[in-house]
């Protein structure tokens, strides 16, 4: 995307986030909006990995879960201040994902999918089993998020927090994509060998974006546990990882705003269609298959293309 286009997109996103509260009627609507912003932030990070670097992770919910559990345990059990817990959780996930990155990202395609999936499932089994620390399948409670005596409380404050974080993430992701790192990622997506021949240390860049997306998921997880007041192992499980990938794919691979759109739509949709709750898994599956077959570049890119084609006519 050109620089002008990017800033226009960023301005539109800022405007939407800023004006949305005028249209949010109640606490329930705020809750959906906050969750959508959290999901969108994770998806922007995951999209760097899937959409730009062409790798896949079927275990990202585990990183989200680890961040949330780190915060929940450190603040609740050991009385740490929330911000310190968040930083330590993010750093821990960063270390873990960095250690995993080289052996995992050496794998390609099916094997990479399987390895990330396996890591995610192992982590969620550990969270489920070590109940002396994690509360087991009942989950873990967490208190408010407060920094230096100031406590984040109420829908508006949390909305501002989640919206601000999303905006900052989109801005940072845009900068990264337009930087040499972004070009390296796109090059290795096209052809890993080609990128290596051009002098790009592909292993390093893949590891970098993997760690970045994992840490981002962990940070959002840390905030989420304070916002929601609790976390369960299911939030770190395989199905959540698949949901995240679906959001990215549905909105549009290799499009930051697509990832945001995908996350927002797929967070809001189940809330609106509560009558179809029993059909949720089925609909999610149909969306994944349908998107990949009929609009492999995702909703946003496809719709934008149609609009452009319509204008030209």
């Amino acid at each position, binding site marked *: 995307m050109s620089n002008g286009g990017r800033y226009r997109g960023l301005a539109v996103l800022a405007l939407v986030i800023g004006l949305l509260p005028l249209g949010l009627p109640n606490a329930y609507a705020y809750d959906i909006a906050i969750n959508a912003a959290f999901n969108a932030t994770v998806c922007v990070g995951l999209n760097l990995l899937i959409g730009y670097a062409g790798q896949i992770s079927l275990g990202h919910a585990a990183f989200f879960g680890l961040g949330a559990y780190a915060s929940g345990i450190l603040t609740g059990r050991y009385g740490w201040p929330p911000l310190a817990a968040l930083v330590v959780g993010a750093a821990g996930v960063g270390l873990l994902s960095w250690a995993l990155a080289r052996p995992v990202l050496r794998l390609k395609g099916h094997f990479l999918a399987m390895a990330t999936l396996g890591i995610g499932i192992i982590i969620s089994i550990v969270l489920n089993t070590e109940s002396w620390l994690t509360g087991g399948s009942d989950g873990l409670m967490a208190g408010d998020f407060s920094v230096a005596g100031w406590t984040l409380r109420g829908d508006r404050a949390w909305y501002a927090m989640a919206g601000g974080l999303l905006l900052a993430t989109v801005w940072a992701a845009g900068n990264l994509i337009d930087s040499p790192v972004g070009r390296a990622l796109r090059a290795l997506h096209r052809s890993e060998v080609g990128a290596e021949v051009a002098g790009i240390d592909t292993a390093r860049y893949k590891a970098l974006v993997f760690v970045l997306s994992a840490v981002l998921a962990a940070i959002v997880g840390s905030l989420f546990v304070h916002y929601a007041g609790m976390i369960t192992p299911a939030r770190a499980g395989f199905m959540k990882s698949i949901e995240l*990938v679906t959001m990215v794919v549905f909105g549009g691979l290799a499009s930051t705003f697509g990832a945001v759109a995908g996350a927002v739509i797929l967070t809001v949709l189940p809330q609106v269609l509560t009558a179809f709750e029993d059909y949720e898994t089925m609909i999610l599956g149909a969306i994944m298959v349908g998107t990949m077959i009929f609009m492999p570049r995702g909703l946003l890119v496809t719709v934008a293309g149609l609009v452009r084609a319509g204008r030209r006519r």
Partner: protein
Amino acid sequence: MLSSFVQYLFSGVTIGAIYALAGLGFTIIYNASHVINFAQGEFIMIGAMATVSLVGLGLPLVLAIPLAIAVTVLVGVAVARFAIMPARDASVVTLIIITIGVSLFLRGVAQVLWGKGYHALPPFSGDVPFQVLGAALLPQSLWVLGTALVVIAGLGWFFGRTLYGKAILATACNRLAAQLVGIRVSGVLLASFGLAAFLGAAGGIVMTPITFTSADAGIMLGLKGFTAAVLGGLGNGTGAILGGLIVGIAEAMSAGYLSSSYKEATAFVIILAVLFFLPNGLLGRAGTERV
């Protein structure tokens, strides 16, 4: 001491036989089309659940089982026709997402049709266990192993002795060349999905009297089948069978000797170890990559 070991071995080999059949399903589809079918586990579930339903309608097992297998094979062929074929030349990541989507879709349909509860089938020939070396061996375990052996022998015959089997092998070797000698490769894709669905359904049905089944049973079974296929060397049939037995036995042993809550993690620890240290699996040939 010995008796509990033998007991774990029995249960490991029994469940391992199911993983082997699922692993073979992965192998057949992978060979025919280079697609990893993450919906393989759903075939196991559909075979089992359809049998439960048909038996519930009052059909005898001998009728319910072939009907349920036929339903599953139809589902398998439909998956190939409506989800895989339209995206035939898509990237690996796209195909992974498609087959995961198919798996969610089938599971969602099963949840709507059959609810989320567990279902059981009566054992095929009583439930009085045999005593072997102090351990109890369920007659149903023999059904599982017998079925697996018959199916595997049948597959060997199909691929080694029949024209259709050889056509699938030829396509696996070289798609273009197979097309040139007059093999309909799209038919091969459909057939491989049908065959994989058949293997899954057969395994799922004979296993249900022991383990029960539910709409959500497919995920883990499928992933473990994939572990079996990768452990044996992706694309290698014998390897998939060996891999299935190893995963099954390892799982039963870790449940028995280590911790039953970490039993489910065993297969994933194995697959990570294989992927990190033994990427070609036990029997796979070292791959080279064309640029």
